[in-house]
């Protein structure tokens, strides 16, 4: 294959009509989020401009922790039930993007905490449980990268994916209980009186980040799918090589 042909064959390697549409939606959504989140929406009465971090913080928490890790949990359950490769790869893809979004939640949460609480880290139930889930799913991704038989690896990852999601809820509840015993109810960041444009910016953030999530998920899944194909092909090649070796040996044995 010439260089030009290779370039044509690989251009948009994981693109399709669906990803292109989602890609455009994501780009428009992010641009609109920047416009409304940073410029058009007013500063909050109590929190001033730091409220703008919420338009990323809350949506990325919802998308990363619940949507992405929820997909991972669902995919893991289906994989354990019927051994589906599709759902296993989708679970892994969702977990990776979920970790990225959980990272966004932590960064924006801490940057919001500094002007609001005076410290970057408050032992807030949400922030604490997010950080633990972030670390737990890093462990999940580490398991997925192990040099193991793919079937065994997928099974182990699936068990971890299910428990990881359930654990998210346990951690969240226990930390909430812990903090409420010590310092009364936690400070409620979104006050009842909320400006219309602020609410709009928040939902814009939710839509934009959800779209980005599904767009990345499709691409990430397809990358995983190709990795799976390459892994399967290399096993086939190794088997064929072993067979031809054996045939050669038989041939030699026959000659003597």
């Amino acid at each position, binding site marked *: 294959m010439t260089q030009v042909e290779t370039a044509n064959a690989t251009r948009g390697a994981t693109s399709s009509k669906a990803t292109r549409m989602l890609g455009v939606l994501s780009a428009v959504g992010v641009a609109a989020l*920047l416009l409304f989140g*940073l410029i058009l929406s007013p500063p909050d009465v109590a929190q001033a401009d*730091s409220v*703008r971090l919420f338009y990323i913080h809350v949506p*990325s928490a919802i998308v990363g922790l619940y949507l992405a890790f929820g997909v991972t949990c669902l995919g893991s359950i289906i994989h354990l039930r019927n051994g589906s490769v599709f759902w296993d790869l989708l679970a892994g893809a969702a977990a990776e993007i979920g970790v*990225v979004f959980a990272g966004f939640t932590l*960064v924006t949460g801490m940057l919001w905490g500094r002007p609001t609480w005076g410290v970057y880290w408050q032992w807030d139930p949400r922030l604490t449980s997010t950080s633990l889930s972030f670390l737990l799913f890093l462990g999940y991704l580490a398991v997925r990268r192990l040099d193991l038989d793919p079937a065994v690896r997928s099974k182990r990852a699936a068990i971890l994916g299910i428990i990881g999601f359930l654990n998210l809820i346990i951690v969240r509840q226990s930390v909430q209980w812990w903090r409420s015993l010590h310092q009364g109810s936690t400070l409620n960041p979104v006050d009842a009186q909320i400006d219309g444009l602020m609410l709009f910016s928040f939902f814009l953030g939710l839509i934009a980040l959800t779209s980005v999530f599904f767009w*990345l998920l499709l691409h*990430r899944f397809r990358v995983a799918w*190709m990795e799976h194909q390459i892994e399967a092909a290399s096993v086939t090649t190794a088997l064929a090589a072993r067979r031809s070796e054996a045939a050669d040996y038989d041939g030699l044995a026959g000659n003597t």
Partner: protein
Amino acid sequence: MHWEYVIPGYLAVFGSLAIYTVLLLRKARRLAAQVPPEKRRFLHD
């Protein structure tokens, strides 16, 4: 007020999102060169 926290926050999030996307798409291209197109039909395309 508090722009010194808002701007780095947005930069960090969308900057790392851009880096992640570029890395992912580059990996996709590299792998696509190794996988024949007939094996690249992604079940629902």
